[in-house]
């Protein structure tokens, strides 16, 4: 366990160095990428922000609570980009569908360690994370919240759980790519895109049935709306342990299905490349 952790820290260091080298090689491209990340990610929350600004509240959530929620949504996106966006780690169906899992199976590290470390881009991928932190700080001052250790711990724990929930669902649907590599290559894009586009929507004004569906079967509400309300001490009709339970359930199913898919992949391999190395 300690050995694995040391190995992961070392690998994170290597990927951080590679990221820094990439920035130093072409600063203008780096700046352009940062702008693209921030603009395209903020665009997904701008609509709700403008509605909150115009109406003062949506479904019982006040303007500043909604801004806090949008900050949390940006934070989650920032964590995903910083830790899992390089080499399509959060879009694993691309790796599976393109037959690139082979590249990882011959490495002297276990697959899960590679998946946990390979997507790390702390410099070029940090802009969204800082945006999220900035929006959260702004909204907490407007909400007159005293930032305590307990408050910070809640944000950190919930944001990690929300990130792992998104990754679990991305990995779960990506298992299709083991069996149908061409058709399934982009399914993770739709899964990640679903959360990216919709997590900033407040569910407070929706019916209880819709809230249940959107926090269990299709848990978009667990990636911003639900944790925000818990952190801000708002009363919900949903249990306080829902996020952790649903994350564990989805992570377990994803791990089981992924292992099953990997066994299939081990037997059948990938059909994506011809003998001459061209992708079909």
């Amino acid at each position, binding site marked *: 366990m300690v050995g694995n952790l040391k190995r992961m820290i070392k690998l994170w260091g290597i990927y951080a160095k590679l990221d820094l080298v990439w920035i130093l090689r072409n600063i203008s491209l780096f700046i352009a990428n940062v702008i693209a990340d921030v603009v395209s990610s903020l665009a997904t929350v701008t*609509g709700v922000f*403008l509605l909150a600004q115009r109406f003062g509240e949506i*479904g019982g959530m006040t303007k500043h609570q909604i801004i806090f929620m949008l900050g949390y949504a940006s934070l989650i996106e920032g964590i995903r980009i910083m830790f899992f966006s390089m080499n399509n780690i959060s879009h694993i169906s691309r790796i599976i569908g393109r037959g690139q899992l082979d590249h990882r199976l011959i490495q002297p590290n276990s697959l899960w360690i590679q998946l946990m470390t390979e997507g790390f881009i702390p410099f070029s991928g940090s802009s969204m994370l800082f945006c999220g932190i900035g929006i959260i700080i702004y909204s907490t001052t407007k909400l007159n919240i005293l930032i305590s250790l307990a408050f910070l711990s809640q944000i950190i724990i919930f944001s990690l759980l929300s990130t792992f929930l998104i990754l679990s669902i991305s990995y779960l649907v990506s298992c*299709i790519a083991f069996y149908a590599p061409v058709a399934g290559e*982009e399914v993770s894009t739709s899964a990640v895109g679903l959360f990216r586009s919709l997590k900033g929507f407040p569910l407070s*004004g929706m019916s209880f049935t819709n809230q249940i569906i959107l926090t269990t079967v299709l848990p978009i509400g667990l990636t911003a709306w639900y944790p925000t309300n818990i952190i801000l001490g708002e009363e919900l009709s949903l249990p306080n342990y829902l996020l952790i339970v649903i994350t564990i359930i989805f992570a377990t199913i994803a791990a089981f299905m992924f292992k099953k898919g990997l066994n299939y992949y081990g037997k059948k391999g990938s059909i994506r490349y011809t003998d001459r190395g061209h992708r079909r």
Partner: protein
Amino acid sequence: MNKYINTIKLSATKAFDGGLIYILGQYLLELAKLIFLILIWESLAKQGADLGIFSFNELLIYSLGAAILAEQLNVVTPATTSFWEGSIISRYLRPMPVLMHLSLETIGSWLPRIVIFSIPTFTTILITNIELLSYFTESIGHSLISLTLSISLGFAIDYIFASLVIRFKNANYTAYSIRMALITFLSGSVIPFDLFPYQIGKILQILPFGSLASAPLLILLDKGDAFELIALQMFWNLVLWPLAIYTFAKSKERMVSYGG
């Protein structure tokens, strides 16, 4: 004429190269977005919010129109991706002007979405709320003129954008992300301009992006002055098409692609 139809056909069937799952994910995502937006409008209507010039049904029609016509209200031709992939070179070897070829490919690429997503979504929502049908019959004439102008303007904006991408060289993904984010927001395809705070909506309406989605959707709902909105769309078409042809022609000599 056959070569045009065949290009459209080829482009339409290309969408299924990766199988149905390949494209279904995207449509499900768009359907989910539409449902969420409708639920938000419902929440606002329930809390008694002032929805400006719109009623709840009108907002529903606005979002439905924006969703089923998404590809027509924000035209994305293969110009940018084919430049990035290096495949644009093959368009110069075909017996058809490049811009014509790219435009026909785009029209062909719309067909699967119209059949699989737009028609079923439109029909389902109309069946569940038959009152909405009247909106599509009252101002259909003006709406079709406006939609045609919007599509035409969309092509012009995309070719201008493609010319910029050619100048950016390898940063085309970056430019593409910014463009998609900005147009979605600035065209009024998600949130109607009238629901924007302050006077932002009024400014956005007169920009060329406002003529892409907001104008045809407002005309469909019989909101705003149809004559004024169509005149503005014609103005932007007259200004931006010559610019698109000029910038694209100038960019041809700058094309450098490594292939993606």
